[in-house]
């Protein structure tokens, strides 16, 4: 079985700290034999959730844009998904939040229409990761993103425990991700380990 790995960057910066950290994770995953793909939200055409709740009845989003293939195909078909965002104002960017809000349509399948359930085995074999960077060094800087990321992964039946956060704070102090002593190497190893873990459980 090929382990499919999808990285989604919610940073407005191309190839900035967050995307570099995500790229390291994906490179590690690829080295371990994973089939890797990356989506960059800032390059997509999309709208934010309209809160219409039509999906509660139909299971289908009324908006048809670049988010739809990601939500209905690429995330559900992946074995490992990494959501990446810098911290802006103590949470994820509005770009990544737009994507997560639009996943309400998937949540509706599970919680409203109840046409989808995820087994324990499904959750164990689908891994969610959060990849975050922050300018500041505050100890709690990533804490408020986690419930949002958890909400996303719950909808898709991915497990997202505490050790699946790959974060680098203090980007201002380090002068960027390349100045950080271990973040890029850690992300590479985490990506590699994630794929190896799924290969072992086959």
């Amino acid at each position, binding site marked *: 079985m090929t382990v499919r790995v999808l990285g989604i960057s919610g940073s407005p910066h191309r190839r900035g700290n967050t995307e570099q950290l995500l790229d390291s994770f994906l490179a590690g995953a690829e080295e371990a034999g994973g089939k890797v793909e990356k989506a960059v939200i800032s390059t997509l055409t999309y709208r934010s959730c309209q*809160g219409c709740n039509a999906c509660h009845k139909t299971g289908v989003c009324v908006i048809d844009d670049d988010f739809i293939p990601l939500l209905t195909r690429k995330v559900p078909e992946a074995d490992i998904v990494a959501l990446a965002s810098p911290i802006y104002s103590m949470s994820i*960017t509005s770009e990544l939040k737009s994507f997560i809000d639009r996943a309400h349509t998937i949540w509706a399948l599970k919680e409203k229409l109840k046409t989808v359930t995820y087994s324990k085995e499904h959750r164990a074999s689908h891994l969610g990761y959060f990849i975050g960077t922050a300018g500041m060094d505050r100890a709690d800087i990533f804490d408020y993103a986690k419930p949002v990321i958890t909400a*996303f992964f719950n909808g898709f039946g991915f497990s997202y425990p505490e050790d699946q956060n790959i974060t680098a704070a203090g980007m201002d102090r380090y002068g960027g991700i390349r100045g950080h002593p271990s973040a890029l190497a850690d992300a590479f190893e985490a990506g590699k380990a994630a794929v190896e873990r799924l290969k072992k459980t086959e």
Partner: protein
Amino acid sequence: MGVKVLAFATSPRRHGNSEDLLDFLLGGMQEEGDVVIEKYALDEIEIRPCRGCNACEKLNRCIIEDDDLHWVLEKIIEADIVVMASPVFCMGLCAQAKALVDRMQVLRSRKYVLRLPVVPPERQGKRLGVFLATAGQDWDYVFDALIPTVKCFFHVMDIKNRDISYLMINNVDHKGELRAHPTAQKDAEELGRTLIRDIRKRLGQEHSGGRE
């Protein structure tokens, strides 16, 4: 001179629960008389996401010039009370509200990087902030993760923690449910009246009275 209230209904659903809560608050404010309220629905104006370019750290303005942020920023600075109402989507502010918060980066740069005043000295420490939220889930912790973001929003416009009021109602999901809530309307109206009386004292305005 009337008290200036600036309110943002950030929900994509017009006249849903969070906007109803906002309207109750604004109704209470209006009862106090001599209040100028401007309300904007983010659904009807365009506030794009922050690009994270940090140009505002040098320019003291945002380089995105073709959306509505510029006049919105001016109104934020002129307002005596700034109100934001948001639904909880996936444990956070809705993306539309988050875009507005993120674009306040220009004020953060002004205040913390360029060390320039955000409001004139005579108004510093006097302005009030209000955050209103509604959530479909009944969890009591459903608002916890978004509070630090709300604080950022107000801090950069020189409104401190002690001057931010919160009214957050969980377990209201379908449109109209807030109106059936046992305390939400009363609490929002009372908060509105209290805040107007408070800001009048702070601004040293004589109470002209709207209800005599």
